[in-house]
């Protein structure tokens, strides 16, 4: 069990009030809050050793370079990378996936090839593949869901059987940002490899909330964002197997990504620097390393257990709220994400945007909308949904406040 009181004391923002009520922050799938140590790491860098990295020979440059490369090693250990050189710093998950589509994808995906996705993907693991498929003349296939919101693995097997070696890539989320479904990524990796395809995991939700081990999964690419895992915005990670990264053409050209430059041609730098053109986000890279230390200190098994226990409590507690329809699978196949609507007879009783505004007046931050997963909304036939998502600092009392506020919202709208 986590010492949630102690954890909460590490997060300055949790002391603030919203509309005169204590903040209940349940929008962690969008972005997490930051502990004091991460905030402090950013100001320490700017106050004490701000310098450009990998070039200067002065003390500040040496310190900054060491701190940045140390953050890379921490991230590598956190996901059990074979080597820290497999960790490429990018802006966010979206940039990581686009980089794969624009470099590996352009080099390997040809006309008639197939990329297999699922209907639960976030736009960031869908639109880059649409762009690639359009330019390469490739085809996209989508794994459907079972009635509970799990991936239909039988359907995946059928798609792989049908298209065989034409499948060049399978790309799926490790955990759905809408349904909370935890996907069996190791099983999917084995299925993809059996037809010779590579497997990319969109880990935007899984790395922050679950233990993730790239060697145990057996995946080829893994993408995630720092800001959803207690780290700063604007820093994220593309991990890929060393051999895959080495064979990949560069992404952007410029400083740092080259070994030798002549007027008409250049020689690329070693990985990961080949993919990090220009001055990177040094401060936030270092901040991400500190966030990783913080999560490691708690232990990702404990993070997962806390959130699944809260999700279980929420499913039980919210079942007592009339007219509440919850999407997604039961525990333990679900992480700390609860997406819902107030509905009767298939009709929305309160639009999720109204619900989010009413809850905001109670100091409760939830997300409402399509959660950057419009195809999934279409799949369920709703324009939008409301979503509460948990992290290490959330409590059962906060779930109670959510449940009570949902009752008051129905009173306000005269729903009996």
């Amino acid at each position, binding site marked *: 069990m986590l010492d949630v009181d102690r954890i909460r004391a590490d997060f300055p923002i949790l002391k603030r009030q919203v509309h005169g009520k204590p903040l209940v922050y349940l929008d962690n799938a969008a972005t997490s809050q930051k502990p004091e140590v991460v905030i402090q790491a950013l100001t320490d860098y700017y106050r004490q050793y701000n310098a450009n990295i990998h070039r200067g020979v002065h003390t500040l440059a040496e310190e900054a370079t060491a701190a940045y490369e140390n953050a890379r090693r921490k991230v590598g250990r956190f996901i059990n990378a074979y080597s820290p050189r497999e960790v490429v710093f990018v802006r966010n998950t979206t940039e990581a996936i686009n980089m794969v589509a624009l470099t590996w994808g352009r080099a390997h995906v040809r006309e008639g090839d197939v990329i297999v996705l699922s209907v639960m993907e976030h736009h960031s693991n869908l639109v880059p593949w649409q762009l690639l498929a359009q330019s390469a003349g490739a085809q996209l296939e989508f794994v459907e869901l079972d009635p509970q919101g799990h991936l239909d693995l039988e359907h995946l097997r059928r798609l792989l059987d049908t298209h065989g070696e034409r499948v060049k890539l399978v790309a799926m989320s490790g955990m759905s940002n809408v349904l909370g479904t935890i996907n069996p990524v190791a099983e999917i990796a084995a299925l993809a490899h059996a037809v010779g395809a590579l497997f990319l995991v969109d880990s935007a939700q899984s790395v922050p909330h679950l233990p993730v081990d790239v060697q145990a999964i057996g995946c080829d690419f893994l993408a995630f964002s720092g800001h959803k895992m207690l780290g700063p915005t604007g820093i994220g990670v593309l991990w890929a197997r060393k051999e895959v990264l080495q064979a990949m053409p560069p992404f952007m050209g410029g400083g740092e990504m080259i070994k030798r430059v002549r007027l008409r041609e250049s020689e690329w730098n070693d990985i990961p620097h080949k993919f990090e053109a220009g001055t990177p986000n040094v401060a936030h890279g270092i901040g991400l390393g500190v966030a990783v230390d913080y999560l490691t200190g708690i232990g990702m098994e404990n993070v997962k257990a806390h959130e699944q226990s809260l999700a279980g409590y929420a499913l039980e507690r919210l079942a007592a709220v009339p007219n509440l329809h919850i999407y997604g699978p039961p525990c333990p196949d679900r992480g700390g994400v609860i997406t819902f609507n107030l509905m009767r007879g298939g009709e929305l009783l*309160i*639009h*999720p*945007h*109204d619900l989010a*505004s*009413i809850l*905001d*007046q*109670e100091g409760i931050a939830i997300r*409402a*909308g*399509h959660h950057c997963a419009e195809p999934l*909304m279409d799949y369920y036939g709703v*324009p*939008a949904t409301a979503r509460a998502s948990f992290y290490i600092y959330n409590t059962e009392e906060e779930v109670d406040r959510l449940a009570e506020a949902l009752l*008051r919202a129905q009173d*306000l*709208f*005269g729903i009996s």
Partner: protein
Amino acid sequence: MSEMYTERLLDHYLHPRNRGSLPRHLDEGGSVFVAEEYNPLCGDRVRIEFRVQNGQVAEAYFDGRGCAVCLGAASILTEVIHGKSLDELRSLGRSEFLAELQSSIRPARLKCALLPWIAFRRAAYGEDQSGEE
């Protein structure tokens, strides 16, 4: 509980006025104006229809699906424009319309509240106010 969901706005959402379409009057004259607006962010969709006769809005209707802010504002709009001339209504700008709602619309919800007004401006004057928020 909230300054946004005022009695007036909620009343218009829960008991909408002039919801539906213009009746087909075969013998009545005048000109019919129609426009529909869509907010891709939340899926709100609202249509405003009105008939101008003898220089005035003789009938106004709205229909659509969306949140309470959008549909409540649409119902209020049909009452506000009724009986006025299109010349008079030119002065019904963004802030004038928001004032009619008598509700403090939070910044993130302005697009919801303005969607019916954007439809009205398009129908009446052919203006594109969709960049307005």
